[in-house]
């Protein structure tokens, strides 16, 4: 457990020493969501309807931006090999890195979503559901993305390939995440969608660090 916390702390510290990288993804999220009303036109009814989808797709892309950095720097300077050789299990360290990635790339998006939702004229309860769905969904995105990041580590054209591998796997999270908000707006209740999202998060939380570790070991061979 110490090793886990130490990895989280180290990754957070490294990221905070170089704030621009973290902030780039956050501003990307803000700018992409603001582009849609400009492109589609300021029609409040339409914007209200498509807001959850836009926020989710933007969150997806913003998470994707941070993924290549998850392992590449550590791979280049050899830290990753030391981690694989260390006495504490690599899976635990990987889980720590994924948590740190979520705290840096996922959590800011969750916190910003209610403010950006106001741009789309969403009411308070809808904003609450949207934030809750993102809170459950963004860790899922980080977990699935970590598998892709580990698979494409040190591969030619890794960035584009990463998007090709990871985006299809993101589709279920997108459907249920945006679906929760739409179901709530339609008066159906978001419980079912949120439960499914939480179930996927629980499954991914168990399996993803494990698959990521296997992929990293392949990359390090």
């Amino acid at each position, binding site marked *: 457990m110490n090793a886990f916390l130490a990895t989280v702390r180290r990754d957070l510290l490294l990221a905070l020493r170089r704030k621009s990288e973290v902030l780039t993804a956050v501003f990307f999220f803000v700018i992409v969501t603001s582009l849609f009303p400009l492109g589609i036109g300021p029609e409040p009814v339409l914007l209200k309807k498509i807001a959850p989808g836009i926020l989710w797709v933007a969150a997806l892309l913003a998470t994707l931006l941070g993924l290549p950095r998850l392992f590449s720097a550590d791979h280049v300077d050899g830290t990753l090999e030391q981690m694989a050789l260390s006495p504490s299990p690599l899976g635990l360290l990987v889980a720590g890195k994924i948590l740190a990635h979520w705290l840096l790339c996922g959590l800011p998006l969750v916190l910003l979503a209610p403010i950006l939702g106001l741009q789309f004229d969403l009411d308070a309860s809808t904003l609450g559901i949207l934030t809750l769905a993102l809170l459950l969904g963004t860790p899922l995105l980080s977990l699935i993305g970590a598998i892709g990041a580990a698979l494409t580590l040190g591969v030619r054209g890794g960035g584009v*390939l990463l998007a*090709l591998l990871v985006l299809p796997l993101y589709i279920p999270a997108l459907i249920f995440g945006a679906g929760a908000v739409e179901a709530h707006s339609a008066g159906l209740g978001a419980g079912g969608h949120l439960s499914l999202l939480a179930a996927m998060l629980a499954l991914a939380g168990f399996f993803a660090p494990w698959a990521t570790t296997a*992929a990293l070991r*392949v990359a390090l*061979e």
Partner: protein
Amino acid sequence: MIPWFWAAAIIFGVGGLWISFFVAPTDAQQGEGYRIIFVHVPASWMSMFIYLVMAFWAGLGLALNTRVSGMMAQALAPTGALMAALSLWTGALWGKPMWGAWWVWDARLTSELILFFLYLGFMALQAAIDDPRRADKAGAILALVGVVNIPIIYFSVKWWNTLHQGSTINLNKAPSMAQTMLWGMLLMALAFWMYSIAVALMRVRAIILERERHTEWVKHAVE
């Protein structure tokens, strides 16, 4: 072995096509347009089944570190992608006259599309990694992660009440279709099976020869 599978594929294919075009009766509600299902259903079955077989070989390759399993997975992927594309394409051709739209965002269609993307991702990942052993292992992990999608496609018509109709063929009750239609579909399914096996075996032979090109026996075999 390969010529036998080719012969079987052609015989079953010709028989299946003959039944599906000339013997099977015109559907009461859908008219002649329903005949596309004789290609659509077997292609969809194969696209899911090939993925399962691919994931099986991938898992075997990871667990036992056998070399041919990775090659089998690599050889199956293009055929699987072809089947998924065929299934989506024939589905679109069927959907236009029946539903009035080429494409609807229904759970089964969407998950089949994801399956197609998974095949493409698998092939892209394998193509991007130069070292074949590493490519096999990385692809195997991806294939195993993606296998979650198969039950979702298969049960999507039961779990979500959407536009795509439920399955007409069940093991435990009489199929809700005419006998000749069933025969046509089964023959076409067999033809698709034989074709997939023949093509996968041919491709795996080419992959083995390519990877072992530095060895003596390949030089003899090619001569």
